[in-house]
């Protein structure tokens, strides 16, 4: 199918609340949250694996809930709190999930890691002591090709234990 190339690109002013910092941006109205985060805000910690909502790699949190940033338009979430992987650590102090993923080797190539960390963060906020099956269920939308998932499950359990002891 031929793409339209001579149309006027409609732009919109957005105020995005990302990791507790508010930014005002002028972006094409059709740009996805994924593209705005990566290209307009240089928050490249959010990755993409398909840009079709299939792999979970681009997961971010919107008001604490996991969302696929490749399927969201920023104008849909105007003013709501967005968390990316860059917002997980406090200063140079890693989030317990980040710490556990690092210690147990749950990140190999690291490409799916930001999305899985954020989905796990949301899970532990809702359910501080999930069973292994509950973790599997919560992360079932996130694909990983390196780890065989085993060390990720162990890392979420380790973090859960440390956070809620």
């Amino acid at each position, binding site marked *: 199918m*031929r*793409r*339209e*190339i001579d149309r006027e690109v409609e732009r919109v002013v957005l105020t995005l609340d990302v990791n507790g910092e508010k930014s005002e941006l002028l972006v094409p109205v059709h740009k996805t949250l994924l593209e705005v985060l*990566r290209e307009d805000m*240089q928050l*490249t*910690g*959010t*990755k*993409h*694996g*398909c*840009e*079709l909502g*299939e*792999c979970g*790699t681009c997961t971010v949190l919107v008001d604490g809930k996991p969302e696929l940033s490749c399927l969201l338009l920023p104008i849909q979430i105007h003013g709501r709190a967005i968390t*990316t*992987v*860059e917002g*997980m*650590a406090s200063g*140079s*102090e*890693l989030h317990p999930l*980040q*710490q556990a*993923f*690092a*210690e*147990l*080797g749950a*990140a*190999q*190539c*690291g*490409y*799916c*890691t*930001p999305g899985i*960390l954020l989905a796990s963060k949301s899970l532990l906020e809702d359910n501080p002591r999930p069973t292994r099956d509950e*973790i*599997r*269920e919560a*992360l*079932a*939308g*996130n*694909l*990983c*090709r*390196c*780890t*065989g*998932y*085993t*060390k*990720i*499950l162990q890392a979420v359990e380790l973090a859960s234990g440390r956070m809620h002891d």
Partner: protein
Amino acid sequence: MTENPLPPARPSTSPARRGGESADLKVVGKPLPKVDAATKVTGRAVYADDMLPARTLHCKILRSPHPHARILSIDTSAARRIPGVIAVITGADLPIKFGILPVTQDERALEHEKVRYVGDPIAAVAATEEEIAAAACDAINVEYEVLEPVMSIDAALQPPKDERVQDYGGPNNVHKFVALEFGDVDDGFSRAEHVREDVFFFQGNTHLPMEQHSAIATFVDGKVTLWSSTQVVHYVHRALSKVLELPMNRIRVIGAAHGGGFGGKTDPFAHEIIVAKLAMLTGRPVKCTLSREEVFYAHRGRHPVLMWVRTGVTREGRITAMHFRSALDGGAYGSYGVASTFYTGALQTVTYDIPAYRFEGCRVFTNKPPCGPKRGHGTPQPRFALELHLEKIARDLGLDPVDLKRRNFVKPYSRTVNWLRVTSCGLEECTERVMNASGYQDRTRRAGHGMGFAISSYMSGAGTAIYWNDMPHSEVQIKVDRGGITVFCGAMDIGQGSDSVLASIVAEELGLQPPDIRLVTADTDTTPIDLGSYSSRVTFMAGNAALEAARKMRAKLVEAAAAKMSRDPADVEVTDGRIGDLSFEEASILAEARFGTLTSAGSYTPPKIAGPFKGSGVGPSPAYSYSACVVDLDADARTGLVRVNKVWIAHDVGRAINPLLVEGQVEGSVYMGLGEALMEEQAFRKGLHKWPSMLEYKSPTFLDTPEIETFIVETVDPEGPYGAKEAGQGPLLPVPPALCAAVFDALGVWIDEIPVTPEKVVEALRRKEKGEPARYGPPRFPSIPYPPVIKVEPPPKDLDAATAAI
């Protein structure tokens, strides 16, 4: 805690190590976090697509919609007129052919004469926005003369309707034949008390890395710099030099942070050459990131392989002879295909003692994306066939399949009939571990439940380079300056942890911890050669190079410290950040004063152990890993659904430099093996991929992946660094056959074709019910005009005693 440094190794209370070899290791063998773990978990690793220098242009590639067609004309004039389009190139701009193997230089970055698969690149656009580049691709007008596509092994063996896919190779669309015989196979069969033949098919599948391929190039001061998501910076460097007609010293290739390879980023790719050319033309950075659909078509993944195997055995199950045939559906280009073809016949002998062995292989060209190396490169398919074939032979003879396999295990420190040198071999111990842990022998019978066993082996690096040369396969330089240690090595960390292996080895030798070591890796300008992350070679080869360089550096530090302390260097301990009584920093300052600039270098060249015949370069490795695996599953006779409950796997890694990373490699391999065994399928309809998306191409999720219990077996190989061998590929291999053996155990039907989908299971059960053979699989092996076999004498019994220092 803070993110840097990550926790050090547990403090050791054992006595300090004194120069030379010692088993008292402080870093090696410890489950330490990866050196880049904090970077990865904070999202700060910079992958190629994360780079966006000022004035970057975005590149899109126009690809063929036809599987097979002649290009009559290409009109780019409308595309060039679109505002924002800065450059448009076609095959006329990049006419020189390239390819990973010297014998198959059959690819062009952009094709202007003929397209051979849907997705073959034709033209490329650099524009200020990605959308403009895509629109400009749509505005390019290409006239084609559509040709009849060749879409199967059977079709490729027949005369082509219109014309061949490639204009070289064997008859019709045959790319490569191999026909070798080691020992007297006919005599072996005549001594057999039972002979069995089987046919198997292993469907093709793809790597599916989470990161799409991406590359970005600049052209500054007459020099090209390319950052790419590649496993092989050196081979990309060579291909760029050839196609761009620039000397190697005008090109720099840097491996960006890597989002997953599994063999899929081991060829030089069109987009890497295209962005470099566009950067040269525009003077601006140019980036190209493939879409997920393009990644499916870029492929270079697992070959679909049809296999026939005939084996003679004694009544006790000892193999007397084996004849193995393979037919590989290669896709449209050579890629690694010649090597892949040899690999389908090379490693059968490395696990089982086969006294006489004949191998006939054939790769064909078809109008599909080219196949290449995926985890296990050409060996998971024959391993699947071999293990199931032996299961069936055991049942023919009324023997336990585990017993039959054990009776034929190769012995450590032996030569196979096809001249492969086996050193350390933990097959027995691996088998023992999974047998004991899984309770396989004492399993209780219940309907629909089954367990299956299989073994495998893989190389710790190919013994020969891809292009013929006598240079080392890996080199490491170390610089120590005012207490700081930097290690330079071309090795590419693709997530497997090769950076951590390098840091661990250097830290071990210098009495430090991995976070004390700075690494510069995978940069053709600043690091010495490493051939790349393929064939499971990095720990063994770069590891040995690092070990040599580190020991030389240690000797200098010890000499300077000993002089200061007026002590014999042999009495100077190097441990816990100290060189004798001095701190590492004090010793390094003394050594720098004594020797000048403190550098050391180490390199690794594999031993020359290939046999005296054409084709002997594929298969030899300085050491082989070994694995044994048990799969436990439930299979539903009504729906055909297979649910894996648990996998036990033992892997002989020689020595685990870092057991955490070894477990990660083993678990990831088992997962990927299960995906291939149960669901992954790269299949085509009318030249189009049936399911080029991550939703439709099924891969195991968190919910599909069972518990995996890993046992690390350490046989301490005499030539590996600290005895280490490979871990990243071998453990995939036993999983598909173990799964199929378990399905037979559960339902009494053989699924001789990967993947084991529910339809196949139900169909096999239907056939069993009707009294037909209880099997789903290929009915026959095609008639292939293999050339006469080349007969090779087996190696003399005293070969290694006489010529090799094992």
